[in-house]
């Protein structure tokens, strides 16, 4: 009796501490991601002129215009100072050129679209009342739109990147999967050495493989082509695939295949009809893993592409040299991260199976 109460208390204490730990880790993971997301919707004004920076992007901006002997003055509401602050040109008049400049400035700095006609009508109210306060809806996706304008080659490069990823998956899964099956099902001389040996492939820096590869790919006529790049990516991915597929195949009992053999199928038939369907989730996870690896790779792609860069290269070149604009960089990196995150969502069910019986 006493013991069972003790056990109950112990169990609920364990469960509580489990949830606290899980919530803690989740928070540590989400916290930075939240800001990455948040910044990507902020205007330049929010990220650079407010201190402390807002934690969530605003959906609209508030402006004020007043007038003195020098002309009109524009102010924007600064949330951190809790007051209106000077914005844009010190003063302006209602000439066409001034208003065009002003409208552009508001669009770039505050991500708000205010037409010249609107400003003109506001100015007439200022003439009458002395000042006007108005708010404008912020274009939340302005950074994303700007990102695709800055990176002119983004569209085709996404397509190329997808092709590279697809070829990488096909090569690494077919070649690696065969070897993985051999490691899982057969005993043969040199098995352990080979299995560790394929890992050693990953030990030579990939960049330095990429440079001699330029010559090989040129001989094959694959320079600057998606297939050429995936041939290089597959080098690292194959060794990963071998390990993962070996563990997947190991988790499927041999007895199932043997049963099929008894019923008169040959080995290939047994593999095709019994093992493969059972291994499919693990193989899918392995494929997605290859996808993430190839989708995110930058440096070999920089070496091996010239006129047909992959999407990560386009992002890298567009963003890294312009370190200044945090909001633009975050928008770009979220755009790049999105496909990989979606694929992660797909593989999460299979990931534990994928690492199931991994052994050296």
């Amino acid at each position: 009796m006493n013991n069972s109460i003790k056990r109950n208390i112990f169990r609920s204490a364990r469960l509580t501490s489990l949830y606290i730990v899980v919530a803690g880790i989740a928070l540590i993971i989400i916290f930075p991601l939240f800001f990455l997301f948040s910044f990507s919707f902020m205007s330049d004004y929010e990220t650079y002129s407010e201190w402390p920076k807002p934690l969530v992007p605003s959906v609209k901006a508030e402006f004020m215009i007043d007038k003195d002997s020098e002309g009109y003055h524009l102010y924007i509401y600064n949330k951190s100072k809790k007051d209106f602050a000077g914005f844009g040109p010190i003063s302006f008049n209602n000439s066409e050129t001034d208003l065009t400049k002003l409208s552009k400035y508001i669009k770039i700095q505050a991500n708000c679209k205010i037409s010249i006609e609107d400003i003109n009508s506001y100015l007439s109210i200022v003439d009458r009342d002395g000042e006007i306060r108005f708010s404008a809806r912020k274009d939340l996706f302005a950074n994303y739109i700007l990102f695709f304008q800055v990176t002119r080659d983004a569209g085709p490069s996404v397509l190329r990147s997808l092709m590279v990823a697809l070829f990488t998956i096909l090569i690494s899964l077919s070649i690696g999967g065969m070897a993985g099956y051999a490691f899982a099902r057969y005993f043969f001389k040199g098995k352990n050495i080979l299995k560790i040996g394929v890992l050693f492939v990953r030990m030579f820096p990939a960049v330095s493989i990429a440079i001699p590869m330029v010559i090989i790919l040129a001989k094959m006529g694959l320079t600057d082509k998606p297939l050429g790049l995936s041939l290089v990516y597959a080098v690292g991915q194959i060794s990963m695939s071998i390990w993962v597929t070996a563990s997947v195949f190991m988790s499927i009992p041999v007895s199932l295949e043997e049963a099929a053999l008894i019923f008169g199928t040959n080995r290939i038939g047994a593999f095709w009809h019994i093992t493969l369907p059972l291994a499919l989730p693990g193989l899918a996870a392995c494929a997605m893993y290859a996808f993430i690896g190839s989708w995110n790779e930058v440096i070999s792609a920089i070496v091996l592409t010239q006129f047909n860069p992959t999407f990560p290269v386009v992002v890298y070149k567009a963003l890294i040299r312009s370190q200044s604009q945090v909001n633009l960089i975050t928008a770009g990196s979220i755009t790049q991260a999105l496909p990989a995150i979606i694929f992660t969502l797909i593989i999460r069910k299979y990931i534990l199976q994928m690492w199931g019986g991994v052994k050296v």
Partner: protein
Amino acid sequence: MTMKNPQLLLSMETRRKIMPYLLIAPVIIYYFIFWLFPVINSVIGSFKDIEDQWTLSNYIYIFKDPVFYQSVINTGILVVFSVTVEFLLAFGLALLINIKFKGSSVFLFLAMIPMALPAVAVGAIWTSGFATRGWLNSFLMTFGFIDDAGKFLFLAGGKYASMLLIIIVDAWQVIPFVMIILLAGLQGIGNDMKEAGYIFGGSRFQVLRKIIIPMLKPTITTAMILRIISAIQIWLIIVMIFGFNRIPVLLEQVVLNVDELGSEFFLRIGMALSVIVALIVSLVAILYLKVSGSFEKKDGDSE
């Protein structure tokens, strides 16, 4: 299982002998063309000067360069600290959450996001977070933990502060990855084994030390070896946060020479450096496998 046809059995026996080699042949061929050939090219290139004459000057140049020693030391510090810290934390977490709980699949998805993120995104998160006027200070200020005078100078800190930041960022991205591998291994250990341990009077710690860890050893070796290989080759995230040459590490120097400086001379230096990096990585990996006893198994040993 009874075989009706002895001849079929025999032919299957020979087939069983050839089959694995047939299955592995494509990998070997692939690696001959797309790995060994470029690697040999790189190694040869590292021993030649710009005029294509045999020389050791590339290596001498590297060994005379103080930045090289600095990058070796930095890499060493980063590897030792990040691999141990990440492993211990990941192992502890994996032990803790090794139960199916409500929302475990959502949690698994969350834990996998950091490793799916491209380096650009990870860099963006932390440069915008660790900047003196970044979101971390903003957050602390908004909720009144610090005032304007008490801002943390994360990125503007000294060398060791920067290294600490790198370790934290790396841990943030990698711990979930290591944890998932270990978790998968833990789930493979049946409950009956643990229960047997408890029945024979073992304490929780004894069960962990005598049953769980030995059974988990293959998984631990996998996780460690993958981590060591990639930890020594850390560079992109450092460059994304600090740029080139602030915190020199081995692979960053390779990329710098190969890609950024962009002349034939530096290309050869980069090749020599990558040979050195490959040697270091292999040495550490072999050392680890030796110490952990993974070579003790004989060929053809069953899994």
